[in-house]
């Protein structure tokens, strides 16, 4: 890769590894937390049929249906969901085109508040119920209030502690992913595949909404107001400290002060070439019809740090969480597949240097490995273990 020429002495592993770790760690933490929640709170499968959302609007799965009925129902559900997401994405493109940025930011903050307070509260109550933790309602409500409001600050304000913002984004991903794992099984798998295909289409096709969004953002040199995880920019360890413009809004007053003598600042025009990808993902949880805006897809942020949309976090974790509902062996297989897919996507990102969809490769690999592990690997391992050949 041509980035090697910029660094005279240090090996490529030093900074490339650090950037990769910067994006793999939160993805792994998100997946691990969702698996933990699924294992802790896993009730019997029959109770999951009462979960209703927009993703089960067309058909709700019951245990007594034949496989063909379930498959058909799952297709219908996925179709409805992907259609809803497409409409919402085009709406986002329209609003961005009309420069309603304040409205979008407010909406983002509001959706973060709903997720953290509502979903977070429900999951905490489930955990408290499960462990019979003797906390009283006053303390609980104060803690929940604190948690949600600071989360809204972290998401809404453009300049905030990087670590806390990243932590809150991962928490939001975990909460939404856990709720998506409660969908019926066939619907989940078909939905994941459908979303991977949609992501591919929306980012790479010229008429795709995400591509339009990215091009508009680039041409205006603005950030898309949506929930995107940005890894901490890596500071190269040669003698120059690179001052990166992490947030664009305050370029006039902020970046001209406090520049040390040995700080080099990148040109604004060069940073315009860094792109981000975003696929808004609409999640309507249960009875409310309020969609929330997440992003999927991977790209390069304004500071050169890797940006990964929150929708990617969510759907990777949904896949792994659904694998956890079967057995932990499928979890390991799917985790490795997803990380491999993410690595491939990052490599493609460095080759093509444009916004890429992060879902397709990982989801396809994950689904393939899940079914291989479930159908073939498990039989093999069980036979080996029971005959004391391999444990």
């Amino acid at each position, binding site marked *: 890769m041509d980035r090697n020429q910029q660094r005279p002495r240090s090996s490529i592993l030093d900074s490339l590894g650090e950037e990769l770790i910067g994006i793999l760690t939160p993805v792994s933490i998100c997946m691990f937390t969702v698996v933990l929640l699924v294992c802790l709170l896993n009730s019997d499968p029959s109770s999951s049929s009462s979960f209703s959302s927009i993703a089960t609007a067309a058909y709700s799965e019951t245990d007594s249906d034949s496989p063909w009925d379930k498959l058909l129902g799952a297709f219908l559900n996925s179709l409805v969901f992907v259609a809803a997401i497409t409409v919402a994405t085009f709406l986002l493109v329209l609003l961005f085109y009309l420069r309603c940025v304040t409205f979008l930011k407010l909406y983002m903050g509001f959706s973060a508040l709903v997720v953290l307070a509502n979903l977070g509260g429900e999951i905490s109550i489930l955990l408290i119920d499960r462990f019979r933790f003797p*906390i*009283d309602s006053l303390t609980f409500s*104060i803690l929940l209030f604190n948690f949600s409001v600071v989360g809204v600050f972290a998401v809404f304000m453009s300049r*905030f*502690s*990087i670590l806390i913002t990243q932590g809150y984004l991962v928490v939001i991903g975990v909460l939404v992913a856990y709720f998506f794992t409660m969908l019926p099984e066939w619907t989940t798998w078909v939905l994941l595949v459908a979303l991977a295909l949609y992501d591919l289409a929306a980012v790479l096709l010229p008429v795709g909404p995400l591509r339009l969004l990215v091009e508009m953002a680039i041409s205006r040199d603005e950030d898309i107001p949506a929930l995107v995880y940005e890894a901490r920019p890596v500071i190269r360890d040669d003698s120059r400290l690179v001052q990166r413009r992490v947030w664009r809004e305050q370029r006039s007053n902020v970046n001209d002060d406090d520049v*040390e003598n040995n700080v080099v600042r990148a040109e604004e025009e060069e940073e315009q070439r860094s792109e981000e990808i975003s696929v808004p993902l609409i999640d309507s949880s249960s009875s409310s019809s309020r969609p929330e805006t997440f992003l999927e897809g991977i790209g390069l942020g304004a500071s050169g740090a890797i940006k990964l949309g929150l929708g990617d976090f969510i759907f990777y974790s949904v896949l792994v969480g659904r694998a956890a509902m079967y057995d932990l062996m499928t979890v390991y297989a799917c985790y490795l597949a997803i990380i491999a897919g993410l690595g491939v996507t990052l490599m493609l990102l460095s080759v093509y240097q444009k916004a890429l969809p992060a879902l397709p490769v990982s989801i396809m690999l994950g689904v393939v490995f899940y079914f291989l592990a479930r159908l073939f690997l498990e039989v093999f391992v069980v036979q080996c273990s029971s005959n004391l050949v391999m444990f």
Partner: protein
Amino acid sequence: MEEASRIDEPNRNPNTDRSSNPNPLSSIISSAHVWPTIDGPLGLTEEASVDYARRFYKFGFALLPWLWAVNCFYFWPVLRHSRAFPQIRNYVVRSAIGFSVFTSLLLAWALTFSIGGEQLFGPVWDKLVMYNVADRLGLSGLA
């Protein structure tokens, strides 16, 4: 990804070229290699920090001790280097005090509640404990 790190001008001090720095004093202070926020050079400048610290401190009074804790965490270098940033330090120290007071009160109440249990409170305990409240209000359902 290397656009941001390319050197665009041979002059190592872009400050003299294109900045319209109205406050030379702040640049002297901030060129002392100590950044007020925990993010270092990626974080806020000093003027913005004062504004942020003050806003966090004021908002924390709305029953938000966690915001005070975040304030202290974010401006941790201000607490460590006790000489620099006098204005920010004022707010951060007050936030720290507020956080400790609030947390100790809350912890005292929560521990009394959970350890005391029914023996201390009587039948009110069952009415206040969270899992019963959730059952009563129907919050522990999934959908």
